[in-house]
């Protein structure tokens, strides 16, 4: 809200005598600003406390394992009490990458349909449905994944996939239903709302002059659309990274469909695996001694650092892309 910030000073320079009522107004204004600023600044405290608490909680694990925690491949709470999170990090990144491979093209399509292809009134209804997809709780996706998606994939999709592509090692091996690919599919469904909403906004921000120029040259609808996409391409990358940030932190749904098996590398896309978020959800309650708890908090700390990096990067890219396109419109 643009308000004349310097108003009190301006009045001072006029050497007016303020009524006591006006002075009270100023006092109230300053007090109100101070109080709301204090509340708003609690975010510093909150984020600071979060980072401090997580570092403090994982200190024992950091001291014991150091960098070996990130490159170690053993997770043995029962006997040797050695913890290494590399398989978890790999599991998280690979399932998220599969989610992006499936989810980003579909989101791109939805973003284009909403901004370029569909009439606006129709677009409103579709946007609402996409929002609904975002509002479904993670655990309901997990429930649906366990009892609907897994049986469907196991019986109607994976066997055919295996006969068609079984010569590639990725698609060989036993089919359980749950596993790496199923996890990736569920994550893809869950990131589509976020990514497609950002893409719609990006494409809508592309100035019409760009479209008109190429249409005037005799371009087809698709050739026009290509111009729109290339105009917003850095934002598209940002939107994909934003989706990656969501996929990496997703917990309940992935815990329920990935099979939760600690191993460095799965034998195929149908094999079970584990992610950072899933191991915290499964084991934090059962962690019986300090080092075990500390190792799990350490996993949480790594997850926080990864998501912070991803999110900050994505926000900067999207923000810059938005500003660039908007800036050109104004000129």
């Amino acid at each position: 809200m643009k308000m004349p910030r310097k108003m009190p000073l301006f009045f001072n320079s006029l050497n007016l005598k303020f009524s006591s009522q006006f002075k009270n107004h100023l006092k109230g204004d300053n007090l109100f600003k101070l109080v709301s600023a204090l509340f708003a600044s609690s975010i510093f405290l909150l984020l600071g406390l979060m980072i401090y608490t997580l570092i403090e909680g994982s200190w024992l694990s950091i001291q014991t394992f150091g960098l070996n925690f990130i490159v170690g491949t053993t997770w043995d709470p029962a006997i040797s009490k050695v913890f290494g999170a590399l398989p978890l990090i790999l599991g998280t990144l690979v399932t998220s990458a599969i989610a992006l491979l499936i989810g980003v093209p579909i989101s791109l399509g939805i973003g284009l349909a909403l901004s370029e292809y569909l009439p606006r009134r129709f677009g409103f209804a579709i946007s609402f449905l996409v929002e609904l997809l975002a509002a479904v709780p993670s655990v309901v996706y997990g429930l649906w994944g366990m009892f609907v998606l897994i049986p469907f994939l196991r019986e109607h999709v994976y066997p055919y996939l295996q006969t068609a592509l079984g010569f590639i090692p990725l698609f060989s091996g036993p089919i359980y239903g749950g596993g790496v690919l199923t996890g990736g599919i569920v994550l893809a469904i869950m990131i589509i709302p976020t990514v497609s909403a950002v893409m719609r906004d990006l494409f809508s921000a592309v100035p019409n002059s760009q479209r008109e120029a190429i249409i005037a040259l005799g371009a087809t609808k698709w050739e026009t659309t290509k111009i729109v996409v290339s105009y917003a391409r850095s934002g598209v990358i940002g939107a994909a990274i934003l989706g990656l940030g969501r996929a990496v932190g997703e917990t309940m749904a992935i815990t329920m469909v990935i099979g939760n098996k600690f191993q460095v590398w799965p034998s195929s896309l149908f094999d079970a695996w584990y992610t950072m978020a899933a191991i915290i959800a499964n084991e934090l309650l059962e962690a019986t001694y300090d080092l075990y708890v500390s190792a799990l908090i350490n996993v949480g700390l790594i997850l926080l650092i990864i998501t912070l990096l991803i999110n900050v990067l994505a926000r900067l890219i999207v923000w810059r892309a938005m500003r660039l396109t908007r800036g050109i419109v104004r000129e």
Partner: protein
Amino acid sequence: MDYHKLRFIKDRLMQSLVYLSLILAFIPLFSIIYEVFVRGVSAINVDFFIKPTPTVGEVGGGVANAIQGTLITIGLASLIGVPVGLMSGIFLSEYSESRLSMIIRFLHDVLGGVPSIVIGVFAYALITRSIGFSVTAAAFALAVIMIPIVTRTTEEALKLVPMSIREAAIALGIPRWKVTITIALSSARKAIITGILLSIARIAGESAPILVSMGFWRWWFAGLNRPVANLALNIFIFAMSPFKNWVTLAWGSALILIIMVLIISVLARITLTRG
């Protein structure tokens, strides 16, 4: 001639791909809603709403304790989350010219991007380790999730209030803070309440932070330093259990959550598009 045909075919092909992606995205949505309704309805009866979690092997039972627990947890979370979010939103919209608010807005975006499981671990390390698995820890985690959502929606709602209304009030000699509270807040009332409802819908569905900070609880509310039952967490525990009865209850709980989310989303759509 062939070249033009090729362009035309390519155009049509890409158009169908765009529409195909829409259809692909909506299959899961409709499948989820359909399955949850069909499988959930069979779980719903009077017992479902008045009886607590059944013990292993017991027939029937319900989720009454989980509904009570969820309401208590949401209530406690709102006690922290709503005032902080509301005041932060007011600061960001009314004093947006200051550099501080740019940084604060960015940090709220950052907090909004932190995975809920990490917030759960935060609550666990900060509160659960000192007072035990408790509704307090869970409510704190949910409040942290709530704050960025309430802040964002409050800020956006206040920014939609026309400047002319504020100017008119200021011209009448009303101090700026009173203008904010009585004029701006009350004109944006509907949108702000909608934002709070949206954040409640979001935290009602959260189960990861609940799981790590409070854990599963089969009984009624037993004090702020004890856990309470939770609908969303019940779905996870029940679904992973081998008992048929519990799985049925999971679908029933999912139905309640989905209906709540649907109602709030439709409500939000109506109030936010009408302004």
